[in-house]
């Protein structure tokens, strides 16, 4: 056939009693126009024991984040043709592996919930929309688009060491999404909650998050802006 592509897949089945191992797989696939998820699904069609998550297959739902050749990416928008062989696919680092490419996302979502990710506005509700100028709305660009895939947070060494106490880049990006929203009134409480040596200040500007984000967002910049707010209200 000559179209074979080589893959190395992280395999782990907790019921087998075996430790995790890397499985070499050769797949007959033409990489042109195909994404890594297409290949993983084709592999699963041959060997249905391979466990992975997937949903929208167009990079907007955040299900299929995996570590590909050392980088966290969404399998569905990672072109096969760009990848060096053997393509090494592992579960996201820094989270407990449930099986194969599936990790336990709860530590990630717990931190997301911890920033109280909802708009707070205690003014009486107008009978129409609250007004927001296009400029005020533009401040949410680069923030609200986050898909909670965890590529950034699980690429962050600070989160690896402190998953219970450090919010992580995704959570902090979302924290800033509400701080930056002209309609949100809870800025003081939000800043209070983040002004903590662990929750925010574990960020060391390693910038893995920026490199990892498949949506091109910049959590490090958001973290910087939160810090600016903290400094501003202090000095």
């Amino acid at each position, binding site marked *: 056939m000559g179209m074979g592509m080589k893959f190395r897949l992280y395999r782990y089945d907790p019921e087998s009693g075996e430790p995790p191992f890397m499985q070499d797989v050769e797949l007959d696939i033409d990489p042109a126009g195909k994404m890594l998820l297409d290949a993983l699904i084709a592999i699963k069609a041959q060997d249905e024991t391979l466990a992975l*998550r997937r*949903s929208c297959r*167009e990079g907007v*739902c*955040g299900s299929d984040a995996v570590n590909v050749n050392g980088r966290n990416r969404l399998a569905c928008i990672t072109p096969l043709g760009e990848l060096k062989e053997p393509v090494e696919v592992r579960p996201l680092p820094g989270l407990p592996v449930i*099986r194969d490419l599936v990790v336990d996302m709860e530590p990630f979502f717990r931190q997301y919930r911890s920033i109280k990710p909802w*708009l707070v506005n205690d003014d009486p509700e107008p009978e*129409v929309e*609250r007004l927001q100028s296009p400029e005020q*709305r533009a401040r949410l660009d680069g923030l609200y688009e986050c898909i909670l895939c965890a590529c950034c947070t699980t690429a962050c060494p600070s989160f690896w060491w402190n998953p219970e106490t450090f919010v992580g880049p995704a959570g902090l990006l979302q924290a800033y999404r509400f701080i930056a929203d002209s309609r949100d009134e809870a800025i003081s409480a939000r800043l209070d909650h983040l002004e903590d040596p662990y929750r925010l200040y574990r960020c060391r500007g390693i910038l893995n998050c920026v490199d990892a984000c498949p949506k091109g967002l910049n959590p490090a910049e958001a973290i910087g802006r939160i810090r600016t707010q903290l400094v501003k209200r202090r000095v």
Partner: protein
Amino acid sequence: MKTRRFDALIIGGGGAGLRAALQLARSDHTVAVVSKVFPTRSHTVSAQGGITAALANVDDDRWEWHMYDTVKGGDWLGDQDAIEFMCREAASAVYELEHMGLPFSRLDNGRIYQRPFGGQSKNFGGEQATRTCAAADRTGHALLHTLYQQNIKHRTQFFDEYFALDLVRDAEGYCLGVTATSIETGEPLLIEARATLLATGGAGRVFGNSSNAMINTGDGLGMVLRAGLPLQDMEFWQFHPTGIAGVGCLITEGARGEGGYLLNRHGERFMQRYAPHAQDLAGRDVVARAIAIEIAEGRGCGAQGDHVELKLDHLGEAAIAQKLPGIRELSIRFAGVDPAHAPIPVAPTAHYMMGGIPTNLHGQVVAPARFGPEEPVPGLYAVGECACVSVHGANRLGGNSLLDLVVFGRAAGRHMLEYLRDNPYPRPLPDDAAAAGLARLARWDRKGSERVAAITADLRRLMQKHCGVFRTDGVLREGLAELDALEARLAQAGLQDTSRVFNTARIEALELENLVAVARATLVSARARTESRGAHAREDFPQRDDANWLRHTLYVREGDQLDTKPVRLKPLTVESIKPKERVY
């Protein structure tokens, strides 16, 4: 068997389920949401263009005009009471989302940005209206995340990555909850609730070429059919005109709303021939059929002549970056084309199921029973794409699906609260409450020679070939015969993977059972409807037949029975919109 008990239970964590859950979570009732994926992975997240409501932020508008457009868009198959209800409630539902924090794009005066969409008119069929409220071209993402955030705030109980197996009902027909299985552990779970809402979304994955997420497998539809309840109008599937050719990912109608247009291989704006007035913003079924005809008659683009082109570059890079950033990203990734510089190759792709579980406008599931064709099933509700209220009739207008989710999600939530008040105590569970669900799980412990992935692929090919944009009795009949053979194979199928922990092979097998049930309902209903209406185009019956078919079809699984019931032409308060020829 492990059992949990709540006042209310929602199956599905998309826009409809989360909106209903929010209504319940704000009350003093306990509510649980069961979702087979983490809620923000639900297909609502993929909705791009927006949510339609006559806010009149950009141009004159009235909900009555929206109602007219929706009735006409649905080729008069929609129930006019439900449509009036939806269009009346639209503005408050959108304002409410804004108050919850949804980051809508804005106009210079600070109000919500609105864009023109297909099928929208002023003055009952006059000039193009501008009615669809948008958060750039990521409105579904913004909406779903906002609703999820509100549910976190109100402490909704989530069962993430639990797959619902079957409804639990008692001898009198009351729905008492569901059986489910934890995907992570493989353990079965019985969830009891006095009121259960199905919000399981569509089943677009029954087609080979689909814009839908891989999770859209009609799970709620399968549950309803297995419970002996009917599905309504299952022959009506919307093929979206502009899926990325060969991939199926969606390019929003908003791209044409912002000024984009379609070209065939001769560079001709062919929609001028098919819809002289609305052109590229005619109803989706009209545009999809036009593209299909252009391709079939050899005017398609590309080496295979299998697509047409969507031209956007004349809008300018700045406008595309601001208003259509998401589809630009999709186009670059999946078509290798930057729409700011070159046209996007597009072709029709299966997109939306207009039919579904029949409900009234409170979201109560209704079925023919002793006293009439629309008797509520006590304790059972359905909302969103899995339901058929029916507001979309024979063809849904763009921007009306997100609206459907929030309007009827809210309405169902409100009615469930009433129902909980009137039914304060749980009814006793029958002894065999979990039997059906456990049997579904046990079936896949059996060995078998056929593989699930192969059958799924064949099913999708079958439906693509036998139930596409154009249909005839012969092709549908062949499709049903092939489906019989495929179901025989399904009976012989077994899993290679019989493990417990995160066994996605088992989930895919359970999903395939639901898809097959949906395919059968679709083929049988499509064969029965001997007319062309909206998205259902029969080459052997090219005309709409109001004399015989101003009716909804009702499919029941046992014996593939097909029944009908009349369309509700009488709105709640306004005058009925009388059927007339549908031209754009």
